[in-house]
């Protein structure tokens, strides 16, 4: 950027005063998204107070050719919210009002800085909830969820963020404001809302989001079963699917994750189990009651032992705490780790896990696995020690092997964490040259100056230096755990 001062002057004209941070000490907190090994200092951070701040800032960026990036809570796991060199970070957290929550249309209109979990909390008085449940739910923002099309443990049945947004107000990279979709569940015309979701900040910034709310299920039934091999747990998933049941969640943890969870939250797993499967049924009470014997039958036949049934909400929470704590717990086993979230066809889960085991042996690194088995979304955690010369690079290489494996098996390099900085170099292995060029052209049509979150998702630009720095501060405090 050539002329900081005239750019800053224009920003200050918006009346942002002290909310424009430019001193290096003020910028430190924004230099990474915490969970990846990337770091970059922005030239300034604007703590936006309202939509006009955001629009005004983007117009100024456009005028002065300054790259910008919106930032929610900075929990991206793919380097998506690492600042742009010499760019502006627009912090969205203060735009955190729920503007409307309507039980009749079952929608909520929220500002993008609203925390994911806050939506369900606000909707609870009407018996409603917001379905997408990333495990970062207590901290991540709806804006970040929209940018990444975030998921959670219930995607198989309920889909991801995109399936729960009906309307958006956005500001394009040149400052033009656009209204997409509406407050109807049904769309009309090309689905621009769906197209914007998952665009990782490259198409501009979301200013208002209309969410669809669902009635909270009346009854849950949660079962945890142990297996003497990962393969058997994988087969059990296939058997549940083949039985015609559609569980709300189907999750698997491997031995390393179990050990970690046991140490962290006193979760209980049998000592010799190599894998544990969690299945959750939900729905009206009569329905769940009728499904229970079917599920138990399948689980019995799958060679499970020691199935634990959650008899009440407390036991259910215990099972989920074990599952949800697994990641941060694994983090304690190692100074650093990388988490991937590639997808494979469900029937190839067993094969994929065996291959990952081989990679781990080959690279002499430990890889833990906790994943959304129902939709084939792996979450391998590669444990490494960033203080050891060359370990980060080896971990990254191993991660690359896993991504290529997912592509080879016909899956995807990311199920929910987004491409960000971290996986952009694998885009050309997943998409053909023609298809990738088409995406570049879409970006070019919307942002010819390449100012909106440049360097993310599409493989171009220079990557910020890789710097290892361990677990996210929130994770260290035990507030969130990685899925």
């Amino acid at each position, binding site marked *: 950027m050539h002329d900081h001062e005239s750019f800053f002057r224009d920003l200050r004209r918006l009346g942002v005063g002290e909310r424009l941070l430019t001193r290096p000490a003020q910028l430190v907190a924004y230099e990474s998204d915490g969970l990846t090994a990337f770091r970059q200092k922005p030239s300034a951070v604007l703590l936006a107070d309202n939509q006009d701040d955001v629009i005004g800032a983007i117009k100024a960026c456009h005028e002065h050719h300054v790259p910008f990036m919106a930032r929610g809570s900075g929990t991206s796991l793919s380097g998506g919210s690492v600042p742009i060199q010499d760019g502006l970070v627009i912090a969205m957290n203060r735009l955190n009002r729920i503007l409307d929550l309507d039980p009749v249309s079952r929608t909520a209109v929220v500002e993008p800085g609203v925390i994911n979990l806050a939506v369900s909390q606000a909707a609870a008085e009407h018996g409603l909830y917001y379905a997408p449940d990333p495990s970062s739910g207590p901290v991540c923002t709806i804006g970040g969820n929209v940018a990444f099309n975030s998921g959670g443990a219930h995607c198989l049945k309920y889909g991801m963020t995109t399936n729960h947004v009906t309307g958006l107000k956005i500001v394009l990279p040149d400052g033009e404001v656009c209204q997409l979709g509406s407050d109807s569940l*049904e769309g*009309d*015309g090309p689905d*621009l809302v769906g197209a914007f979701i998952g665009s990782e900040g490259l*198409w501009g910034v979301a200013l208002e989001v209309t969410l669809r709310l669902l009635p909270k299920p009346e009854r849950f039934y949660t079962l945890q079963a142990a297996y003497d091999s990962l393969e058997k747990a994988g087969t059990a998933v296939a058997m549940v699917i083949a039985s015609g049941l559609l569980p709300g969640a189907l999750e698997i943890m491997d031995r390393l994750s179990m050990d970690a969870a046991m140490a962290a939250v006193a979760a209980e797993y049998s000592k010799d189990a190599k894998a544990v499967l969690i299945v959750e049924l939900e729905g009206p009470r009569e*329905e769940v009651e009728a499904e229970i014997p079917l599920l138990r039958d399948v689980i019995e036949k799958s060679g499970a032992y020691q199935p634990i049934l959650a008899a009440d909400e407390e036991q259910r929470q215990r099972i989920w705490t074990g599952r949800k704590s697994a990641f941060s717990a694994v983090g304690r086993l190692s100074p650093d780790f990388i988490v991937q979230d590639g*997808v494979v066809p469900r029937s190839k889960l067993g094969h994929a896990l065996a291959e990952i085991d081989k990679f781990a042996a080959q690279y002499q690194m430990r890889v833990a696995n906790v994943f959304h088995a129902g939709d084939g979304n792996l979450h391998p955690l590669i444990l490494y020690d960033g203080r050891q010369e060359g370990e980060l690079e080896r971990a990254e290489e191993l991660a690359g092997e896993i991504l290529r494996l997912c592509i080879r098996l016909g899956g995807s390099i990311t199920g929910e964490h987004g*491409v960000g900085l971290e996986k952009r170099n694998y885009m050309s292995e997943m998409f053909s040259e023609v298809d990738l060029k088409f995406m570049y052209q879409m970006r*070019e049509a919307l942002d010819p100056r390449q100012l909106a979150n440049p360097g993310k998702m599409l493989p171009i630009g220079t990557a910020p230096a890789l710097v290892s720095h361990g677990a996210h501060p929130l994770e260290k405090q035990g507030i969130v755990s990685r899925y």
Partner: protein
Amino acid sequence: MPPSQVGERPTPESEDQLKELVLKLPYVKAVGGGSKPALSRDATISMAAIRGVVDYLPEEYTISVRAGTPVQEVMATLEEHGQFLPFDPPLSSAGATIGGTVAAGVSGPGRFRYGGVRDFLLGVTFMSGDGRIIHGGGKVVKNAAGFDIPKLMVGGLGAWGLITELTFKVFPRAMETLTAEIETASWADACRLGHELALAPLDLLCLELAPPNKICLRIGGQVSSLQERSERMRRSYGGDSWKQIQPDALMWQDAADFAWAGDTNALVRMAINPKQMELAEATVTQWSRADEVQRRYGVGGNVLWMSGPDEVLGESVPLLVTVLNRPALAIRGTWDVARIGGRPPNVLAERLHSVFDPQRRFVPPKSQMA
């Protein structure tokens, strides 16, 4: 390349033939199965020969099909494994194709529970206006890599590309389903009860309202649970008017085929907010020929389907569009443009469209963009 049966349109069988045509014709408009004539009257290419199931993996919950495949064929293939397209694609009996369903962006009654065509579309292959074959999205049930191009095909009315192949997520069908009708004292009561039902944790598959005072709902699940669930709902919501409808499947197939609308009538769709149901009825019932206009409020009141003689709808739909401040989409009947009430130009759409169709071959000569 044999001419198509309807209207002598060229019917390409391969991507090469398709490309040749796309680059030759000044205006490229696809027709699928002939079920939504108001949208494809001016078609210049038939997609009927680009047809067939490419890949069906029941254990993965995914199916890939060529765009010209009749929806009926897709449904039958899935049925063999007890699976289905949960958005109940409309007009399958009239020969709707899967490509046309996506391009029109229409879903049927099942949309209420799990989502619409947009929610189940995972991947797309299409030809752009400059003759390139582009693949968007993926083939697994979960994927967040790259721009979500498939979404732009949904409701794009063919203006965003000639769709050649589509991949969908599918679900297992409920073991058993049960349908009931409730009659209320008035439309206002029906709306109130409809809202209440939609808000309750009943796991309804479908929820539709039919003026003057009827609600129709469907539940699905295990054989052993349905009667009990239905009994509980009857006690809480139904009262004396609760009536179980059999056979249940036929009734919903009829609903998806608009059997209530009559073949010769025009058919129009409006995406609305459930809160607008009362205003919509209050407006329609004031029309002088209101008794000739049939209405159905689907998806718990999120979509209004309207049917009636061309001349009646032609005059009154634009008025309703103004009152409700929502555009309407013509599905059948004689209309100058498919999108009634139009829509203000959208910058995002315009800029993106320039990539999909740089020469504007997919846009009707004198109309605005889809």
